[in-house]
């Protein structure tokens, strides 16, 4: 596997599409449309992956060893033999964790520089 030869931090920073796909697969296996719906639902409709972005990212994530294809059919409601399911690999989990730590560190810096208020307060972008 290409990704296994490198450390998780070698792939950072992740593109928003790749991070969103890893988050969508973190709790269960999903097919392409399932990934799209999860990303859209979780972001409140703000992030909508197009088919080209989704499968272009999937292609690179498979090559990097972040995800793998699954033979199982975990979604009986939308099951179709033609649908291809994907699951996150251990390496993908480590990469997603490293990216989350990187983003958390950035958020902490923003908070220290008073660009962001504490979680209980309203964000500055909402005004005083």
């Amino acid at each position: 596997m290409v990704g296994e030869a490198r450390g998780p931090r070698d792939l950072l920073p992740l593109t928003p599409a790749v991070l969103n796909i890893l988050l969508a697969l973190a709790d269960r296996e999903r097919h392409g449309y399932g990934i799209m719906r999860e990303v859209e639902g979780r972001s409140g409709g703000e992030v909508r992956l197009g088919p080209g972005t989704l499968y272009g990212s999937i292609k690179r994530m498979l090559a990097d060893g972040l995800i793998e294809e699954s033979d199982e059919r975990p979604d009986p409601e939308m099951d179709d033999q033609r649908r291809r399911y994907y699951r996150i690999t251990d390496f993908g989990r480590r990469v997603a964790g490293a990216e989350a730590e990187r983003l958390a560190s950035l958020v902490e810096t923003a908070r220290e520089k008073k660009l962001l208020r504490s979680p209980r307060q309203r964000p500055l972008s909402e005004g005083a």
Partner: protein
Amino acid sequence: MPDTGPSQAPSVSERVYKALLVAYPKEFRRAYGLHMAQVFKDLCREEQRRGGAFGLARLWVRTLLDLAATSFVERSKAMRWKFLMPLALVLGLLIALVDSSPNWDDTGITAAAVFGSCGILGALYTRRAWQWALAVGFWIPALGIALHQNYESWAALAVALVGAYVGKLTRFALAARA
């Protein structure tokens, strides 16, 4: 918009989208075309259920922008491979022709040329670095054995392999420091 009515819209849209997939390289289409069409079909049904013809029109705008951007990215990657591979083959052949000429006896320069060109190619296109080594390094043993029965010239392939992977690792190291 190519759709004629609400009930037929998804199937017409799906057919148009399938036709537009020709914008992607053949290998990409072969691997993911069916799945992209399936996802688009699902999206059509969902958008039509949510917003009718207006929802479908919004989906088409988003999808066309996505298709234009991602097909360009996929095509440029395929083009890079198509351009670099012939270049590697020609470069390897030229180095081998010089190396096999009667007046040439500087093996060090030949080895440096093979190592350097494979290193640059391996850094430019890091995936399948071994193929650059084969494309550049194959010619020296091929001509060396065919013209001079020089079986030691297989060593050129080892130099090429080392060069390609040194280039690849250097690229990763530079990317990590950036």
